[in-house]
């Protein structure tokens, strides 16, 4: 589904990713862990198509197509979704309006019938209940004045509504209380299927107990320096990253 090969990315002329490679197949869940500032969000944003992050080398293929040549919206139409680490506030734009516009834009791009207001409400009703987002949030401006946890749950509501085939969750678990973490995990598990894949960027092993990954990768110094299964996450939780760094420099 997704092949990243030898990816180099610069932000403001600073190299952030230095030859990152990763392959994700349909149905898989990959966790990406790594120290602060190691480039996890950079990777996520590059995948979503943020244009101020410059790809200087390497390639990304999504469903056999060159992802780097696509606009962010085209990537979304192909099924890519990013739950932002810091969801953007958009004053004056109604939350429900944005979500409906997004859903219909995606449907139109796929030559599917657009939904009207009534169908839309039916469609998101259970999802809102599942995310425990009160109805009043629909009429508020996108993310404006939402608490940290509310923003994260709103991202997952969007994900559940848009039903992406590849979802990247950038620290969606950070800043959530225990109950909210479970709510989010349930939402994510609800979306899992043999066709859908997930990239979970996280600092905490706790999420990975609830959404069990097939692979765990450590991103450090702009590359994936270690990969393993869920046991690696447990080990990192206990021992931190120092030993990985030592191991890498030893090589």
């Amino acid at each position, binding site marked *: 589904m997704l092949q990243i090969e030898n990816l180099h990315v610069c932000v403001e002329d600073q190299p952030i990713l230095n030859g990152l490679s990763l392959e994700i197949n349909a149905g898989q869940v990959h966790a990406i862990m790594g120290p602060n500032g190691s480039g996890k969000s950079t990777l996520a944003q590059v995948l979503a*198509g943020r244009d101020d992050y410059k790809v200087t080398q390497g390639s990304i293929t999504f469903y056999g197509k060159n992802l780097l040549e696509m606009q962010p919206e085209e990537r*979304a139409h192909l099924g890519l979704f990013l739950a932002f680490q810091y969801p*953007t506030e958009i004053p*004056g734009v109604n939350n429900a309006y944005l979500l409906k516009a997004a*859903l219909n*834009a995606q449907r139109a791009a796929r030559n599917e019938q657009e939904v009207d207001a009534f169908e839309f409400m039916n469609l998101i009703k259970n999802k809102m209940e599942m995310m425990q987002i009160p109805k009043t949030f629909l009429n508020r401006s996108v993310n404006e004045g939402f608490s940290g946890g509310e923003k994260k749950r709103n991202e997952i509501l969007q994900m559940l509504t848009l039903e992406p085939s590849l979802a990247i969750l950038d620290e969606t678990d950070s800043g959530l209380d225990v109950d909210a973490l479970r709510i989010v995990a349930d939402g994510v598990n609800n979306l899992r299927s043999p066709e859908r894949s997930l990239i979970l960027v996280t600092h905490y092993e706790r999420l990975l107990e609830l959404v069990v990954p097939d692979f765990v990768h450590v991103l450090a110094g702009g590359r994936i320096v270690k990969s393993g299964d869920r046991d690696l996450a447990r080990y990192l939780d206990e021992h931190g990253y120092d030993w990985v760094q030592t191991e890498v420099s030893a090589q």
Partner: protein
Amino acid sequence: MNTEILRKEFESRMAQLPSQGKDHEFRRKAMDAFYSAGFPSRQWETWKYTDLKPIASKGFQLIPKESTDSAHETASKLLATCDLEAEPSRLIFLDGHHVPALSSEITTTGLRLSMLGHPGLKNRSAFSKHSSKNFKEHPLAALNAAFSTQGVRIQVAEKTNIDTVIHLVFLDSNLENQTSQPRILIDLKAESKITIVQHFLGAGSNSGWTNSVTEISQARSSDLTLYQLQEHGTEHFHTGLLYSSLTSDASIKLGFIDLGGRLTRNDVQIDLDGAGAKTELFGVFLAADGQHIDNHTRIDHRAPETKSIETFRGIIGDRGRGVFNGKVVVHPDAQKVDAQQSNDNLLLSEKAEIDTKPELEIYADEVKCSHGATVGDLDAEQLFYMKSRGIKESAARGILIFAFANEILKLIGLPKLRERAILGVADHLPSHDRLGVEL
């Protein structure tokens, strides 16, 4: 110079009117004032960014009262776009002249509507005690006063609350080199209340010129809401002065939505003369390719505990040009004044231009004042966020521009008018920023 043509036009008008009376003298005085000042030029501090040469160099003539069939046809077409049910009480003016056949019968106790330009009618002067105040500063208002045969006088009796919204619809039938000079006098007695809409509407691409004056007197504790929606055709010129004098505890809410026209200049002068008088003034102006829109507002706090809140937002596209100048003067002895002002602007292209200048002059010491102006592009993070959800660039831009305007448009208290303004904004956006999604 076309002051000559206008003067000739004036003399021939005067010949048709009864040659005595106060109004007659007043008109002559006004014409003299205009004639000696001439068109304001860019040497004037208040006209630095707006060049009236395109108007001054043309030979405009006052549009004759007898409209042609084709004018009537245009009028009907334009009116068809207005929601009759939303505007049950409306007065229609075609190229400046009142058209009774298209207007509603409005009979409401406590409300008196008198059409200007009917000679021989007693007590229906086209002037108020404020009329000559502005001649020096605003020669175009003097010109309007000199003609002063088009328009309406609206009087609301003491302690009367008029529920019906009065819609004044000024249609221009797209006549080249012709001018209309509508004049609206509003007189609110103590503790009265009314809402009025001034809707300028035109189509086509001939260059006519509308030069309007709205003169408002508000007695103690009166309450006026007035919205102006300007939707002229693409080549039309619009200049207008709105003047209001408020005595104690009177309040005025004013909303200006400017969408059409080639060159638009709105002058607003509000005198908060009585203690406790207050004004809420807001506006949205959208200058798309080649349009020029200038809002010059001045609020004078002349009495204690007066209050003003002013918010204007400009959206400038392509080679559009916007000007905002908001002057607030707090006079000596006007203590405990609260004055807030802001002007935020979106520039949608590299060629778009805005000149914005808030001016505060404070001569009292116990005042609460704030002002600020911003100029910016659409927020890149917000655009990216929306695009990452699958929304196209053009639609995402449209949604953001629209949200920017809507923060102000939602202050319009009339739902149908608000809806029209919203659709109007969407309609006037540069085509590459058009909404790709339904509203």
